[in-house]
């Protein structure tokens, strides 16, 4: 029996492309705004809107806690949410390797459907390309999205101010750790570690219900929380004081990092925000966050200072001050 796979023909733009779209994508994404044209025409209410795009090439494409489909929705939804924007519409572009199993594509689309529904966002446009064997690694997805910015929201990476508290919305490094293990290169298993991949619009909405006095929200994805801290220190021209003891890290992630000599602060997250807000409102924000489904471990991990501009200074477990090492290229396990 012939195996049901994506073929080059599915990406050729003809009848089979339409068939693929009808059969898989439209079946999952259909809604009144879903377009068959090259772009969706959308009615926006003349308010400020946010627009973002992100490409996903995670290998393996499925992992404990999610798959590339869920990830592709969360990534763009969270990017929009960081601007205080309610995600409204998404587009998605697929590059699929010839021979990719159709049932896996279904699973991916179903995860996208479910995640988009949770985030209250509609997938309104898409593109499908099929690449020859070996030209891509199984499946790549790019999503773009627009969101409507809430009236009381005004966030930017340049708005961090001395005196701000820094909150992380959950334990760090889960996604990066999950992917590392899913690649099965090191023979390590951590049954309790799964990806933190989650759509965070609801979380952001709750934060703004608590206070509109939020300066920066950033999604800690590739490069992890450590990279975000350095980005904000540079963009806002401030220093950052990090209390390493208060950074939440799950036991399993600690164990894996211990085995491989990695720093959890530099492992990717896909469902964690780093929030900068005045110290006065921070405790209330943390309280709110801990009631939300994806931020039960939210914690204040540091503060913004006026000196040490562009640097992240860490208080270590012995109470000494040292720099958090800057993020650097490829994560290479340090073993010997």
């Amino acid at each position, binding site marked *: 029996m012939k195996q049901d796979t994506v073929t080059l023909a599915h990406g050729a733009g003809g009848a089979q492309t339409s068939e693929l779209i009808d059969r898989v994508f439209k079946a999952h994404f259909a809604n009144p705004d879903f377009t068959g044209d090259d772009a969706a025409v959308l009615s926006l209410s003349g308010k400020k809107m946010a627009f973002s795009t992100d490409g996903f090439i995670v290998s393996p494409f499925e992992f404990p806690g999610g798959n590339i489909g869920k990830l592709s929705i969360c990534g763009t939804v969270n990017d929009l949410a960081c601007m205080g924007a309610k995600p409204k519409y998404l587009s998605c572009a697929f590059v699929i390797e010839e021979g990719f199993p159709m049932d896996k594509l279904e699973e991916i689309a179903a995860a996208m459907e479910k995640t988009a529904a949770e985030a209250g966002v509609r997938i309104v446009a898409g593109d499908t390309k099929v690449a020859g064997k070996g030209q891509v690694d199984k499946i790549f997805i790019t999503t773009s999205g627009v969101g409507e910015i809430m009236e009381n929201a005004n966030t930017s990476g340049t708005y961090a101010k001395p005196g701000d508290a820094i909150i992380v919305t959950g334990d760090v490094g889960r996604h990066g750790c999950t992917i590392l293990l899913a690649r099965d290169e090191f023979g390590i298993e951590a049954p309790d570690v799964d990806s933190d991949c989650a759509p965070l619009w609801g979380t952001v909405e709750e934060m703004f219900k608590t206070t509109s006095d939020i300066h920066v929200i950033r999604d800690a994805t590739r490069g992890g929380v450590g990279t975000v801290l350095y980005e904000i220190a540079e963009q806002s021209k401030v220093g950052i004081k990090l209390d390493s003891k208060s950074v939440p890290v799950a036991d399993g992630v600690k164990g894996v990092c211990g085995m491989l000599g990695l720093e959890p602060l530099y492992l990717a997250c896909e469902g964690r925000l780093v929030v900068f807000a005045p110290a006065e409102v921070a405790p209330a924000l943390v309280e709110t966050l801990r009631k939300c489904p994806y931020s039960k471990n939210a914690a204040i991990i540091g503060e913004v200072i006026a000196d040490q501009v562009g640097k992240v200074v860490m208080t*270590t*477990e*012995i109470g000494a*001050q*040292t*720099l958090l090492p800057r993020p650097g*290229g490829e994560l*290479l*396990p340090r073993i*010997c």
Partner: protein
Amino acid sequence: MLEAKKIVESYSGRPLRVMEVCGTHTHEIFRLGIRKILPENLKLISGPGCPVCVTPVGYIDKAIQLALMENTIICTFGDLIRVPGTETSLAGARSKGAEIRTVYSPMDALALAKDQPEKQVIFLSVGFETTVPGACLAVKRAKKSGIKNFSILTANKTMPMAYNALHDSADAFLFPGHVSVITGTKLYEDLREKGVSGVVAGFTAEEVLTALAVIVQESQKGKPFFRNCYPTVVKPEGNPLAMQVTAEIMEPCDSEWRGLGVIPQSGLKLRKEYQEYDAELRFNLPPTEGRGNPACRCGEILRGDCCPKDCPLFGKVCTPLHPVGACMVSGEGTCSAYYQYGEL
């Protein structure tokens, strides 16, 4: 820990230079910020105990040659991938299509060889006494199971001769905890007889501070000393089975250390009976004479003779993203630690 920290912080005796020999100590000391709490008269110097850092350029060149041969897979511990050779690095070779895998254990390289019998799998065997038994176990198992497509490229080093070379670099040594797990502590007793002081130290904040506190206290007594401050895993007799497998598979040889030159009998190579697993012989590699950047001062830094900031390349041409010398590559390298954890 508080007690140990207090002793170290409040030291006010004669100036003391303490060399941490082990790269993992260097890394942890910087990560914990221990140098920042030391008084003026207590100085920590980083020694040559980062295996990646002391591996000479010529070795990297050989590994690259092997990587670029047809049908080979190179298995290595992570850090080695970015160390510059004369022309390029293993990362450079990888971008030209070489297959290079990071492994957690030499055993994983052997398992890969078993899985892929059509490929030649070469494990880059660097590291000190702690790491050698694993490589030896892999070779032993390969021979026993008749796995022919596995070999190792050795640049393994042992510490005893290096202490002689470093004799005058410090007033006391922080001896490497995990090397000592294997070797035991007799060597340190002997060194004490020769007037060389030191303590074996573990790697947690508490263990490092305790070891430093003991050094501070013992130094005040004015006699050469040795103390095992890591007795939970370091036993006087070491790990006899580990030493046995090392002695069975490998034998001492002269070895080149980046920065220190050739130190007689400071390396290990495969014994005759196991030479078929020596990648250098199997692939008939020509001798290489690797050349590093002449301005790079890794050598002096490894001897504790100068500090990274004295090097004209440090932080300018040579950074963790674009390393010139090995000490900037490895997370355990002195230059990398200085750069990453910065002076505030």
